[in-house]
Structure formats: C-alpha cells, structure tokens
C-alpha cells in the first residue's frame, strides 16, 4: 500500500513565511526588555553610577558634612602627593593584593583538583569548604583574632609542637599583614574553588583520553589541557579577587585596626577614616577616585593580557 502524504494547508512545509515584525510588535518587545532591565538599571544608577558621579563632584569640594561645601578645585587631588599615609595605605593594599590573590588562586585550584577526583560525598566536602566564604568576614576575623593570640592561641600552639616560637602576630610590624593575608586566603578560597570545579567539569574527558594515548603524564595533562581549558575561570577569579582585595577593609579593621604603625592600614580603611572620622568628604572622594582609577587600570591590563593568555573553547 502506498501512502501518499499531502501536507494540508496548515502543514509546516506549506506555512507562509512569517511577515516581518511590525513596528508596534518590535516596540513592545523593546519596551518589555527595558522593563525587565529597569530594576537592575535603577539599582546600578542609584547605588553605583550615581555615587561615582557624586564622588567626582564631591572631590572638587571642601566639605565637612555639616557646613555648606566650598569649591576646592583640584586641591584635594594635589594633597594626595604629599600624604605619606595615603601612599603607605596604597602600598599596604598592593602588598595584601599581590600576596593574597595568588595564594587564594593556588589554594582554590588545588582543592578544586582534589575534589574533582571523583571523591565520594564530594557535595559534602564542597559545602564544608565553601563555609568560610559564606561566613561574615567580621565573624571570621574575630575567630582569627583568637587563633592568633600569642600565648595559648591555636596557631602558636601548633607551631610550638614543631619547636617554633610563634610571634605576637597581630601586634608585630613584620607579621601583622601576613596574618591578615592568611586569614583572607582561608576566608576567600571557597569562591575560587567552586568556580574552578565548574570549569573542570566542563573540560571534555576525551581530551585527557587522547592525551593519555599520546603518552602524556598527569603533569603534562595538567599543563597542556587543564590549565588552558581552565584559563577563562582563572581569569574571572583573578579579576574579581584583585578588585575585592583592593577593597579590603573589614578584617583589617577588626583584627588590627590598621596597626601596628600603619602596617595594615588599607586604602579603603584610610578613605573611611578620612570621610567619617575626619569629616573630610572632598579629600575622601578624591582618594576613592584614585582607588577607582587604580582598579580600572589593573583590570584593563588584565583584559589586555587575557587575549594572549586565556583560551576560549569556541
């Protein structure tokens, strides 16, 4: 029996092509898109773009919050040049950033690789390791203050078991910043670890299989496959970690209050003090803009570098 199939008038093959959308439809779609974007745009305008613009205006003023502001021109920016505390805070922030970010990346990646070995109950381990990241920084900082107590604190007790006489971490000019960095790495590795785990899960298994057939060892596989394939994740974590590190504040305030001898005074802490303890709003705004510029420059450099170092698997 031969069956002849004839598409009816409403069959897909016979359907006339859709007419081009009328202006009214397109307008409606555009409007809907804008309406969906609106909450986010309003939030961005009110809480991000607005304050940045306001900081630009305030940076040109002498304003103590209570009295009417007076125009200062670029004087607040000129003051930065001779402000030793500002440069020292910038140096401390850079030290913190360039020590804590690589360490965080290494720890995150190592743990992600470990968890990616098909461990049983990986979800439990992943949740446990993510806990520090999910905990409020101030609470973590207070716990670490106790860990760092010179006599009887956990850190020095462990060190003494190895015959090491630990320092008074948070009051030592030499060790206060490394102590903050260690705490921050512990607090922050969870985020990178989760991003790396997602990146590792997206690497096709046949790449490793092919590499094994070609005689690659684990180290070569890691260098030639894992790292390049993971480079977008690494780039994302590096950019966000550097931005966050340049804004470090809570842990330094709680654990050392910027001391001893300004060794842990970070830029954001100095900006906060200038604005809300010294009531020098214009100068604080100028400092904020300089910080913004530093972060912007570093981020642009990173985006330039990613063209050469980051591999996207299209």
């Amino acid at each position, binding site marked *: 029996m031969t069956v002849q199939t004839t598409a009816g008038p409403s069959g897909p093959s016979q359907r006339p092509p859709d007419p081009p959308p009328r202006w009214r439809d397109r307008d409606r779609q555009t409007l809907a898109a804008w309406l969906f974007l609106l909450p986010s745009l309003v939030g961005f305008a009110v809480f991000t773009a607005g304050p940045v613009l306001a900081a630009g205006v305030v940076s040109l003023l002498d304003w103590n919050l209570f*009295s009417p502001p007076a125009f200062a021109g670029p004087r607040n920016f000129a003051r930065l040049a001779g402000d030793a505390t500002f440069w020292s805070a910038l140096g401390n922030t850079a030290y913190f950033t360039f020590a804590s970010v690589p360490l965080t990346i290494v720890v995150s990646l190592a743990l992600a690789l470990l968890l990616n070995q098909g461990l049983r109950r990986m979800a439990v381990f992943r949740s446990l390791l993510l806990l520090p990241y999910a905990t409020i920084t101030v609470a973590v900082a207070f716990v670490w203050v106790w860990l760092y107590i010179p006599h009887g604190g956990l850190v020095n007790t462990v060190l003494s078991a190895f015959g090491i006489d630990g320092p008074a971490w948070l009051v030592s000019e030499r060790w206060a910043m490394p102590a903050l960095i260690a705490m921050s790495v512990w607090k922050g590795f969870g985020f990178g670890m989760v991003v790396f785990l997602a990146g590792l899960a997206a690497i096709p298994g046949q790449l490793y299989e092919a590499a094994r057939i070609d005689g690659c060892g684990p180290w070569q596989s890691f260098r030639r496959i894992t790292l390049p394939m993971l480079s977008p994740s690494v780039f994302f974590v590096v950019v966000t970690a550097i931005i966050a590190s340049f804004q470090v504040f809570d842990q330094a305030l709680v654990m050392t209050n910027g001391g001893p001898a300004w060794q842990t005074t970070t830029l954001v802490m100095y900006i906060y*003090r200038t604005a809300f303890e010294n009531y020098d709003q214009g100068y604080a705004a100028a400092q904020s803009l300089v910080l913004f510029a530093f972060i912007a420059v570093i981020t642009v450099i990173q985006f330039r570098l990613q063209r050469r170092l980051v591999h996207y698997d299209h």
Partner: protein
Amino acid sequence: MSATLSRRRLLGWAAAGGLAATGLLGGCASGPAGAATWSMWSNSPDEGKVWADFSTYVERRLGVPSVPTLTPSDGYPTKLDLQLVSGTASLVTAVNGWLVPTYAARGAHRPLDDLIAGDPSLDVGDFYPATRAISSFGGRTYAIGFDVAPTVLYYNSSLFAQHGIAPPSPTEPMSWAAFRELAIEFSRPENQYGFTCAPNIDDLVSWIYCAGGNVMNQAQTLSTLGAPEAMAGLDFVVGLFARDRATPPIKNLVTENPLANFLQGNVAFMQNGPWQVVNARKATFDWDIVPFPAGPAGSTPRVSGSSFAVPAGTSERDLPLAWALLKTLTSTGALDIYGRAGRNNPARRSAGTAFRPPPANLGIVQRILAGELAGGHPFDVTTNWYQIRQLLAQDLPRSLLGQVPVRDAVAALTPRLDVLMSQHQDNVRLAAQRRR
C-alpha cells in the same frame, strides 16, 4: 480562591510593600510631632533599663511622649553624623566629651549660652567645673554634662591580702615609685600581673598629665609630647609594660580590654574610670578604688565625661521643647536615676549621693571632682581628635610592645602631630569665621 499568584497581583503587592516600607522609613526619621526625642548610646540591657527610666521621668516631667533612640556606642557617632547631616537628629543628642569640639567646630551643635543666660532655673554652679570645661569650645558652651569622672585606680584587695600587703590609702594617692614597686612585686609569680590599662592615648594621657605634661601646648598649636614632662609620664608607663613586664602581655591592639584582664583576678591594679564600677561588681574577688598615683605634678589624671547637646538644625519652633528636654535629662532627678543604677559619676553635685557602695571607697569620685582630695585634668582635645587619637594609636603602642624606644616613637610622630595641630587651628579659625 485561586492559589496561583498572577503577575499583576505580585506587582501590586510589591508596590504596596514598597509604599509601606517608605512610610515606615519616613516614620523612623523623626518622632511624632511634639514628642521629646533624644538619642543616646546603650550597650546592654542594664543600660537600656536606665534610659527607659530616664524616658519615663521625661514624660512625667514634660507631659509629652519621650522617644529615645538608643544605639550601641561603637555605631553611635556614625549614626549621629548621618542624622545631623540629614536633619533627622533628635531634639537632644548625647555626645561624648572628646567629640564636643569636633562637632562644635563644624557647626553641628548649637551654642547654648543664650539659653543658659535666659533661664535662671538652670543652676550652672551645681555642675562640676570639669564637666563645664569638657562641654565647651571656643569660650562657648555647646552641651550640658550628665556624667563626668576622673580616672581612678582599681585594686584587687583579695590579692593584696593573699600577699600580706597592706592595701593602698583610700584617700592619699600613692607615689609613682611606691606604685611601681607594688606593680613589680605583684608580677613576680607566674601568670600574675601588677597593672593593666588600655594601650591607647585615652589611658596613657593620665600619666602624661600627672607628670605635668600634655599632648599639646596650651594654645593647641604645637605638640608637646616630646617635652621632658610628657616624656617622663610616657617613659614611666611604657616602663611598666616593656621594662618591668608588670602588665599582662598585649595580645591584640584592638581587643585589649583592661577590665577583662582585671576580672581574671590575677592583676593587682587597673587604671579605669569609675563608670566601670557597675561592671567590676561582677568580680569574684574583693576590690576597691583609690585615687590615681601621684606623679611629679600630683594626682591629676584625665577627667572625662559625656553631655547632652542640641543640634544646630533645631528649628526655633522646637527649641523650647529641646531646651526643656535637655534640662530634664541633666536634672538632679534624672541623674539620681543614673546614680541609683550604679553609675557613680553624675555631672551634678546634687546627684552625687544617689549611688551606694560597694565598693566602700566609691565616694572618692565626688570628692576628687569637688577638689577635696587628689585632683584631675580635663581631657584636652582638639577639633580633629579622631585623627590625633588614630596617629597615637598607631605609633605609641610600638613602645609599649618594646619594639621602639618611646623617645624615638614620639620623635617620629611629632611632625605629623604638628601638622594635625595646624589643621586644628584652621578648624578653629573657620569656626570663628562662621560664628561672625
């Protein structure tokens, strides 16, 4: 009734919620019209009870609703700043004495001299002279005190008895030499210490005053920390930390707490204000207070306190209620509530009998303030004391830790301190111009 939530209804609820939140926030900005609004710091339920009693007293006296805004002391200045700037501050705001010049120089609070002069019912003479000094700036009164106190010396009498050492005189200040000798003696056994104080300028300054020195000269134009008198005071107290090892080791510059150290029961002396009496009563050992040790200039430790002030933005219409409220909050009746709660440092002489021992020697606080024994030095601060405190908090503790000789630390910070003094003078000049 349909269980599904339509988008329209969701949006409607969101809008209604937004409006309600806006209304609530608006309501938070100020109290009801005609209410006596006032703000104060409060750190514990016990303190909250004191302020609740104040509030009841205000309602009884003024016949209007009393609306106190209580905030933990750490966040109080920031909240007050925001309220002052946004015009939502209470009619009367509590202000720590060391911040009076800071706020006054910026025009945040209203001078009260005209109100004081026009109101014979306010007995200015009933307030201790020290509280009047603390509440003034540039020759004008910006606040009325509610508490004031000299720093005193707490001692663990159980520890004295245990060592067979006679307790110090309840009225006669010890000499520095005698004090140091005792501090060293009590530090001999392991895990026992002679003395504890906070490693910051608020406590160190008492030793400087007792040595006849100061942080700055009288005109507040230059730092005098490097002068021989101030150095003698600093050297003495730094010696107790770094040379004599008579103090508990500093674990952390942020959380170091002399009261917590003292309450451990293994510290013989603690430098602190009498406002800690109420907390020290939790001690599991016997203790009392005595006058601060006398240095070359005598027993003249820091005298500090707190006051109530009226924001500069208070309207003429609200001013009579604000003034009546200010007078009520600082009246003998209100301060008696304060005294009865164990706060033994009310700013008025007439309220000084409200508190009761323990400890037995509590009454010396009022006798010191009245000039009957020992002495005190009003806390000299500048319009940028936040910055000066911060500078000193960074550099001086290095000496207490034995990392840097105190002379070197002072020499290093003096140029920056002088810059801050000059900025303070700018603030003073600007404030004078604004007044004209």
